[in-house]
């Protein structure tokens, strides 16, 4: 049953048009008198807001349909057609993508509005908004694409934009290097994605390469090919969503402006990997082993990132590792085939992580771009709105009932326990406690206690309304988003799970009330222990600790970056240098150069004939005629 509509393509088109328009305006005016910032700001916000309105329209259109017919599609044009491969530039809106659309456009719009305040006075104001719009447009293509290939377009688009935005302050070498790192690490993941896509096409692509056809034909896939496809696609997801072993780019990505961090961490980019796994749920459901691997990689990433997060001193890096950690939860969720739980965590995480980042941005802005938490302190009194909203975000992140994070995280842990993955559940509970610890460590150090830098404290003041209003809206979301998927034990009806049911292939294990209570109880206890530990160490004010032993090891992130550098980057550079210095001049260049030398020699030999006198050219011609005549007169008799 096909429901064809013509307005799906508009959703990515609005931000993309905004990007082109703002980009052109910026290019044509950046060397002359600047246009007013408000113009750029308004132009930039129009696209996302229109997309949000369209997303709402789609959501209600889908809601009006019977549950098993809920999808809309649009084929804009045939993109290319090679052999068996027919790729349409097609868009698909089903419950899964419509949910993604809703929060991506909503949070994207809020971040755009917030950025008007945050980027005030930046000399590349227009460029920033052009990239931001392009980022959102790419993400919307990724979400709406009706085949892996169209998704890949958006996939690459967000990779490109993250590179552009992370190295946005391009006058610092570190920022540019961070952008490069994000881009190159993502390339590794993208290779996995492309290979996975190729395997998929090789296996069942000849019956059509959009999700519907793939889903219908997935049982034709040989088990080995299916496993390889799943793992290769997951490599792509680890790149984009910062999982082991490709998580290293995300903390460095903090070099970009804070709204960009919020956009990367909340609405776009990192959620792409989870979305992709959920999108291919029919495939992962087909291969149980792949799901288990995904889940274990996810939960181990969560553990690792939580350990790192406990020792960071940069407020944004704490949040960055918390994102990696939460992404680990999401993968654990989709890995144990609880796709709706994973996507629901993406949904709630988008709210509270955007909130925390924007709040952190507000603090950073107030302290004139100071990011070290050991230079802050006591900001509670100076920035009450930021404090309260961030507190809500922190509680949601730590999984305090009844904030949104609690419900989504609990859903994942419960699914892990119920499906018999006891180890994953245990690690997950441990990580939940650590999450509470490092989140409130940050909150206590930044907002409580005595100011550590009196001068900066005196100049700090609350951010303008254009920044605080998005914070408040997000805080409301972080507070109440969890109730959308209230589990039965609290008298809810799991709206989100039911909504997503037609899109994802999952089965809900039925366990007793006892298991559910154990899951919830363990989460709450872990949260309480974590927050108690944080309060006892940092609640009354604390000085910057000197790390030693394991803490020092964790502070340096287990030296993973250095390990990668020594094992991969340096040998690669050496190989490159060797090729450049020996193989290139001797093997590849030599034939080319000798060909050119040969022609030079031939040319100088024939140059003698070119005497320049017209008469001599006539002689050449006549000689030619003579020779021809001699030859031809032999043929006559």
């Amino acid at each position, binding site marked *: 049953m096909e429901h064809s509509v013509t307005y799906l393509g508009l959703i990515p088109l609005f931000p993309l048009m905004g990007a082109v328009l703002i980009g052109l305006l910026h290019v044509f005016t950046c060397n002359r008198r600047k246009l007013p910032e408000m113009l750029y700001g308004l132009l930039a916000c129009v696209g996302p807001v229109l997309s949000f309105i369209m997303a709402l329209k789609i959501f209600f259109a889908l809601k009006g349909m019977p549950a098993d017919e809920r999808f809309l599609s649009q084929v804009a044009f045939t993109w290319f057609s090679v052999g068996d491969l027919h790729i349409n530039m097609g868009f698909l809106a089903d419950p899964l993508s419509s949910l993604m659309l809703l929060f991506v456009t909503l949070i994207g719009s809020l971040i755009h509005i917030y950025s008007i305040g945050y980027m005030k006075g930046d000399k590349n104001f227009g460029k920033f908004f052009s990239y931001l719009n392009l980022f959102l447009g790419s993400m919307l293509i990724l979400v709406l694409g009706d085949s892996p290939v169209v998704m890949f377009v958006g996939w690459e688009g967000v990779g490109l934009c993250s590179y552009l935005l992370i190295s946005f302050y391009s006058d610092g070498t570190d920022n540019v290097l961070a952008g490069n790192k994000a881009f190159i690490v993502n390339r590794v993941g993208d290779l996995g994605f492309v290979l996975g896509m190729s395997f998929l096409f090789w296996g069942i692509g000849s019956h059509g390469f959009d999700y519907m056809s793939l889903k219908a034909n997935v049982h034709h896939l040989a088990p080995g090919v299916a496993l390889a496809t799943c793992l290769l696609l997951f490599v792509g997801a680890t790149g984009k969503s910062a999982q082991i072993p490709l998580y290293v780019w995300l903390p460095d990505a903090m070099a970009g402006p804070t709204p960009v961090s919020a956009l990367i961490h909340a609405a776009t980019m990192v959620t792409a990997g989870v979305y992709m796994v959920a999108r291919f749920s029919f495939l992962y459901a087909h291969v149980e082993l792949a799901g288990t691997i995904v889940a274990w990689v996810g939960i181990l990433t969560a553990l690792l990132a939580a350990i790192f997060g406990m020792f960071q001193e940069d407020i944004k890096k704490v949040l960055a590792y918390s994102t990696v950690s939460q992404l680990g939860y999401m993968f654990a969720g989709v890995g144990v085939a609880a796709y709706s739980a994973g996507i629901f965590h993406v949904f709630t995480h988008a709210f509270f992580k955007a909130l925390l980042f924007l709040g952190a941005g507000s603090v950073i802005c107030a302290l004139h771009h100071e990011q070290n938490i050991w230079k802050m302190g006591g900001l509670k009194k100076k920035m009450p709105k930021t404090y309260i909203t961030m507190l809500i975000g922190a509680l949601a992140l730590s999984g305090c009932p009844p904030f949104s994070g609690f419900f989504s995280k609990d859903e994942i842990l419960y699914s892990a326990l119920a499906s018999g993955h006891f180890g994953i559940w245990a690690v997950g509970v441990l990580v939940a406690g650590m999450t509470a610890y490092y989140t409130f460590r940050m909150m206590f150090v930044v907002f409580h206690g005595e100011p550590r830098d009196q001068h900066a404290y005196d100049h700090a003041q609350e951010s303008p309304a254009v920044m605080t209003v998005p914070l408040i809206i997000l805080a409301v979301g972080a507070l109440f988003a969890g109730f959308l998927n209230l589990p039965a034990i609290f008298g809810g009806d799991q709206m989100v799970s039911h909504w997503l049911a037609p899109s994802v292939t999952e089965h809900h294990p039925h366990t007793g009330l006892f298991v559910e209570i154990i899951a919830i109880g363990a989460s709450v206890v872990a949260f309480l222990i974590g927050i108690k530990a944080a309060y006892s160490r940092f609640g009354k004010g604390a000085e910057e600790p000197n790390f030693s032993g394991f803490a020092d090891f964790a502070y340096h992130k287990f030296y993973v970056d250095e390990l990668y550098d020594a094992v991969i980057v340096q040998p690669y550079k050496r190989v490159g240098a060797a090729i450049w210095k020996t193989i290139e001049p001797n093997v590849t260049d030599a034939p080319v150069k000798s060909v050119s030398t040969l022609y030079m020699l031939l040319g100088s030999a024939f140059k003698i004939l*070119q*005497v*320049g*006198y*017209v*008469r001599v*050219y*006539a*002689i050449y011609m*006549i000689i030619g005629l003579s020779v021809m005549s001699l030859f031809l007169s032999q043929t006559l008799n």
Partner: protein
Amino acid sequence: MIHSYLYLSIILFCLGVVGVISRRNVFTVFMSIELMLNSANLAFIAFSRVHESMDGHVLAMMVMAVAAAEAALALAVVILLHKHKSKLDTNVFSLLKG
């Protein structure tokens, strides 16, 4: 007999070619070209006589018109050459030398 006319035409043509490739005086070269055109005309008229049709005559007239046009242009070039270089040598132009 018609062969005699054609032999004469060949002789004149060859003399024209010899003039073009052996002499350096622009006037001589130019008039040698005219000589070649005339030898062609003679062949046209001879064949016209053989076939007793007058198309060859018309073609000869065309050749004369082309020769006239050529004369006008070539003499203009010769005047220019003489003004610039005060020489009538075809060898003063050697810009194509490699």
